[in-house]
């Protein structure tokens, strides 16, 4: 019987917490965007004319196919992170795409239409150098992979290895390139630095070395960029120091040294300090490459050259030009060149003026000497260098973006046999822009969003009328009558707005539903009734900032910050929210170099993305810690304190008002620093003169354990209930210390029996260790959430090889020490600590807790899993007071009996089938509705949704029957009226009787 009750209790509690999305709710308040990352290889499918496929391989180890008409993903394969899944090469022939993965570990062939794997071959060990398709008699049959010490040939249709040969003298010679001209031979090119080039000739059938020769090349430093094979087996190299080109026929036996051609003889010169780059093209792997090639002499100077009868002749000089690329369609090969628009400014600007097109955006392009507004891309015939007429694409550069750095050209034959083309431009800020003539942007992808580092959600501003009303309270009173008039006028405006709103509703109601959906633009942004729509400010690793509408996922503004070091740490701080009309909201981004610690501040308006003109303090010393104080200046901006490595404090903003306030409150401003390399945590107090003094120190010896993470609580968290009502109606008060820090350590000893995870709860003001626990036989990575009076952490149990959850809750006991105010300095009794652990039967990649406006709603934990699912786990299951044996009191309290394994129910996955690849972080924000919490999950993809941990207790359901309830109401109303009347008549009649 007791067991039945237990089961009933469990099922009831599950019923209570169960919440899933209904089928018709899909996509109603959630959206997902999928990204691929920075493109390293991109190939257009030129197999058939109508093909829309664009194959890309990226630095995020993603291999995907894009629809070149829309920019959407056809399919996407996300490989392992790190070097194991690194894509080394992408080759394409017909319907097959061959990919080399993991530094030459795997060779895979994909079917490009549906993205299915055709075959996979495991290659021998050895670091990858090059891969090439090998053709025999106009037919591509093999793929060759060059490793550091071996070359292998594989069949293109089955992946089986034809032969593998060791390279001669591979310990001294660096082999870097493969070349095959379709004549039954494979050439492997290697070199010994500053000495000679080695050319090895293999027979395709059996891998026999036909010939091996070495040619003097004392100037040689690298083969990869400075050499290319052109025109039926001529090796061409360029050297910056000697300012020369070198050529060598690969097959002839008599040549023993390279022929030197001074660039001076061609009237050319390499820019000083620039490594010249040769670009050749081999349209068909079964045929030798073309005789034409590009030579890049400086970052903005390309030249198209031709090798003819052992003579090199320039075809066309492109100066200035940023990017150049070859493309082939059918038999025709063309070259696309991107040039700044200014070089033809004289006549183009005239035509522009005539066309009444006025470009007022001037920007500094390429860091050189051009004030640029747009670039133009032109098509040239590769064999003559003649410009194709009417092939200009004008590329308008984004004033908030970076400069273009890659150009991919898709050429196709038009009906009249002329060559048409489209281009894809990748810029420094990882924007992919697909353009067609005459400059129409077909689609755009913001791939910087594949690497979101940190984010914040900011409330949208009020509408004009609401702001008007708000403004009334903000101003100083100036007499009774004007105030009454002001109130009346603002009420009138409100009434007007309401009428307009009603009219719009009525008007929209007649239209079909699909056409009502109005586009969100930056001008129509305003807060909705329940503050469910917010601005997501996202900071990406490439240094590009985005403002995204949380309701639709539309990018509303973007801003690329130039000169961001690749290993920077970003910290985003909301200094002023939207609540202080007419002051605009203000966000501050602290950009810190990981190695030097030197930082800089970037202040901007999070709604419009505009840089703020507030003077920013210079930060000459490395910043150790930042602290956002509740102290506000006269403009309602919260004060940010930056502590440098000499423990000096810089305040931002640092007006007189702020400094005065800081002096007054200095003795109550404490902060802590963590030095994980020495295992030292130290506390400081602010002095009147903005210097600091050391007040406490805790040293955790690094020989035993190292600090891996320190986390406080979120500043915007509200706790509604001070305690928990127990079964016997007494109250167990929570230990709600806002200064509490959770410090997680991992042992240096990684042996599975001796390794442990340490959990320290330290008061950030006094340095007092409130609780100290050791999880034995445990290992990281530890994910944890610290909130209210609890800490939940996940670790790897190295003994049982499983993930385990552990929850710590802190209670003051049956009475509060001081119920009015909490002070770390005056709380002498240590809290009671309860702890329980559970098995979690799935791996975890990140952990976060839901957050609501007032903290009344019960909490859920959001667990991001490597599978891409987001689990919403009720905190109820992570309660250290879950009883072993069920009793009357525990049932009264609604405690679930203890079970060692945590259940995972599929309806708890908040993102149903919208999996998020490589979840890195979850951000939660409260909305205006107490029941609703906004959730943003980011990783390779971005997913936004709402969760209702206690269900929507403050919202009527979508299918709420308004007609029924109102008809019942009206019915009752009329019934009472009639019966009243009848009763009156009856009374009257009775009186007469």
């Amino acid at each position, binding site marked *: *019987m*007791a*067991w039945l009750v237990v089961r009933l209790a469990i099922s009831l509690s599950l019923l209570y917490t169960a919440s899933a999305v*209904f089928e018709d709710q899909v996509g109603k308040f959630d959206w997902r965007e999928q990204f691929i990352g920075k493109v390293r290889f991109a190939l257009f499918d030129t197999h058939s004319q109508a093909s829309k496929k664009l194959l890309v391989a990226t630095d995020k180890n993603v291999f995907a196919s894009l629809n070149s008409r829309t920019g959407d993903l056809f399919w996407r394969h996300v490989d392992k992170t790190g070097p194991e899944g690194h894509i080394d090469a992408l080759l394409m022939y017909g319907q097959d795409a061959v990919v080399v993965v993991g530094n030459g570990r795997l060779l895979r062939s994909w079917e490009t239409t549906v993205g299915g794997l055709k075959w996979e071959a495991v290659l021998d060990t050895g670091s990858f150098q090059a891969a090439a398709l090998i053709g025999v008699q106009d037919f591509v049959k093999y793929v060759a992979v060059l490793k550091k010490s071996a070359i292998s040939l594989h069949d293109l249709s089955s992946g089986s290895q034809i032969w593998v040969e060791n390279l001669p003298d591979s310990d001294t010679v660096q082999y870097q390139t493969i070349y095959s001209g379709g004549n039954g031979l494979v050439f492997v090119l290697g070199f010994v630095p500053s000495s000679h080039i080695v050319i090895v000739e293999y027979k395709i059938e059996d891998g026999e070395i036909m010939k091996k020769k070495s040619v003097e090349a004392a100037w040689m430093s690298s083969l990869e960029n400075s050499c290319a094979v052109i025109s039926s087996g001529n090796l061409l190299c360029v050297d910056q120091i000697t300012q020369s080109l070198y050529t060598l026929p690969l097959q002839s036996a008599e040549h023993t040294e390279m022929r030197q051609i001074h660039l001076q003889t061609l009237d050319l010169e390499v820019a000083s300090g620039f490594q010249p780059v040769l670009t050749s093209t081999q349209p068909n792997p079964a045929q030798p490459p073309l005789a034409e090639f590009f030579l890049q002499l400086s970052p903005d100077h390309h030249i198209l050259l031709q090798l003819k009868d052992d003579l090199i002749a320039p075809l066309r000089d492109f100066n200035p030009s940023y990017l150049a690329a070859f493309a082939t369609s059918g038999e025709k090969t063309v070259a696309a060149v991107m040039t700044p628009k200014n070089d033809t400014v004289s006549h183009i600007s005239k035509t522009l003026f005539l066309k009444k097109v006025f470009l007022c955006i001037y920007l500094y392009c390429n860091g050189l000497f051009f004030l640029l507004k747009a670039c133009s891309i032109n098509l040239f015939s590769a064999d003559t260098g003649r410009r194709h007429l009417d092939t200009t694409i004008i590329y308008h550069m984004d004033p908030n973006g970076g400069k273009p750095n890659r150009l991919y050209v898709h050429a196709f034959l038009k009906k009249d046999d002329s060559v048409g083309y489209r281009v894809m431009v990748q810029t420094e800020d990882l924007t992919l822009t697909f353009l067609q003539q005459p400059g129409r942007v077909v689609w755009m992808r913001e791939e910087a969003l594949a690497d979101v580092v940190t984010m914040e959600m900011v409330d949208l501003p009020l509408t004009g009328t609401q702001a008007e009303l708000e403004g009334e309270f903000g101003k100083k009173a100036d007499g009774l009558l004007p105030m009454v008039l002001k109130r009346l006028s603002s009420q009138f405006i409100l009434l007007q707005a309401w009428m307009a709103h009603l009219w719009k509703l009525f008007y929209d109601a007649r239209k079909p539903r699909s056409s009502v959906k109005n586009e969100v633009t930056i001008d129509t942004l305003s807060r909705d009734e329940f503050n469910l729509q917010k601005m997501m400010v996202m900071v990406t690793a490439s240094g590009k900032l985005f403002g995204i509408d949380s309701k639709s996922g539309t990018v509303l503004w973007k801003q690329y910050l130039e000169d961001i070091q690749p290993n920077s740490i970003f910290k985003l701080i909301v200094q002023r929210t939207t609540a202080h009309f007419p002051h605009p909201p203000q966000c501050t981004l602290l950009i810190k170099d990981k190695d030097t610690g030197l930082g800089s501040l970037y202040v901007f308006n999070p709604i419009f993305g505009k840089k703020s003109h507030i003077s920013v303090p210079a930060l000459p010393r490395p910043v150790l810690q930042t602290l956002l104080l509740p102290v506000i200046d006269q403009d309602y901006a919260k004060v940010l304190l930056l502590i440098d490595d000499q423990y000096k404090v810089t305040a931002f903003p640092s007006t007189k008002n702020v400094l005065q306030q800081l002096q007054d409150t200095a*003795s109550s401003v404490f902060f802590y620093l963590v030095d994980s390399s020495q295992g030292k945590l130290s506390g400081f107090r602010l002095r009147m003169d903005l210097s600091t*003094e*050391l*007040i*406490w*120190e*805790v*040293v*955790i*010896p690094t020989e*035993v*354990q190292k600090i891996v993470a320190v986390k406080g609580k979120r500043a915007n968290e509200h706790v509604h209930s001070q305690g928990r009502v127990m079964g016997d109606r007494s109250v167990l008060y929570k230990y709600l210390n806002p200064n509490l820090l959770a410090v997680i350590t991992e042992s240096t000893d990684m042996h599975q029996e001796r390794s*442990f995870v*340490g*959990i320290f709860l*330290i008061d950030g003001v*006094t*340095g*007092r*260790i409130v*609780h*100290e*626990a*050791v*999880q*034995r*036989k445990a290992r990281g990575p530890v994910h944890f959430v610290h909130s209210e009076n609890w800490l939940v952490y996940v670790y790897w*149990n190295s003994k049982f090889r499983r993930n*385990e959850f*552990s929850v710590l809750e802190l209670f003051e006991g049956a009475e509060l020490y*001081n119920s009015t105010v909490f002070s770390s*300095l*005056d*709380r*002498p009794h240590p809290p009671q600590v309860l*702890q*329980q*652990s*559970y*098995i979690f039967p799935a791996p975890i990649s990140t952990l976060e807790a839901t957050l609501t406006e007032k903290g009344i709603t019960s909490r859920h934990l959001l667990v991001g899993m490597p599978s891409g699912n987001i689990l919403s786990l009720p905190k109820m299951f992570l309660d250290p007071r879950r009883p*072993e*044996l069920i009793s009357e009191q525990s049932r009264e309290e609604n405690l679930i009996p*203890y*079970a*060692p*394994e945590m259940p995972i129910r599929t309806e708890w996955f908040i993102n149903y089938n919208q999996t998020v690849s490589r979840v890195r972080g979850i951000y939660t924000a409260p909305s205006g509705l107490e029941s609703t919490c906004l959730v943003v999950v980011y990783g390779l993809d971005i997913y936004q949704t709402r969760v209702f941990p206690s269900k929507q207790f403050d919202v009527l359901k979508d*299918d709420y029957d308004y007609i029924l309830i109102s008809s019942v109401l009206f019915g009752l109303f009329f019934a009472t009226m009639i019966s009243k009347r009848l009763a009156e008549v009856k009374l009257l009649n009775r009186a007469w009787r």
Partner: protein
Amino acid sequence: MATIRVLSLILSVLSIITLLWTQSGECNNGRRIGDAVDTDFSGFSVPLEHSFEIDDVPRFRLRGALQFRGGRENGVYLAQNQLSEKDRNTMKDVAAVDGLYRIRVPRVSLQVDRQTERQSEGYITAFVRACSLVESHLSDVITLHTDVSGNVIGISIVTIPGSCRGIEVEDEVDLEVFNTTISVVAPVTAPVPETAPYIERMEQEMEKKGKNPQEQKSFFAKYWMYIVPLVLFLMMSGAQDQSGGGAGGGAGNGGGR
């Protein structure tokens, strides 16, 4: 080179300690702290220093000696001096300006087998507001926290009561002797998922069921005498009023979402 630096560091630390010891000998007018050390050979002692200054620049002086008994947990005693007249006045002055009372101990290992490497450089410090110490008549609770291998990692000091209400402490005697509670806290071992007791409980549950055949019966087997008439009754009433049943079913479907 490195060893020389370490040596010099150790030397300097040692010299500071000896200096402090000699200082304590001079200003010590109460119990002699050296005595306790001499009498207890099995343990070792560590100086506890304190600082309270009007200008809030820490200048640590010896407050007492922490004596650890080797091998036993929590075996710690604090032998400390009385506060001198001068110290008492300073303490009151510091309390009046809301200054801090700081304490510190050197970083040591409490494990006996590590006594050779016990002296590592550096201190761990903690503080309490001087006024609360004065108002509590020098009754403080000092806790030393150690890590898993017995290294002292943190010290904390609280006074009971901990508040500063601005009560004047008139009696000089109240500020003479510390009323200290001292303890050493080692980390607790966090619990692991309790699978064994859970399985045991489940088995007991099963056994109980097996013993009691009444319990083993299913819900339907137990209450069939109530369910069958109810079902029959429902069927009868349903047959009588076909149309009403249909309407009811429709409403049920609508509301069931």
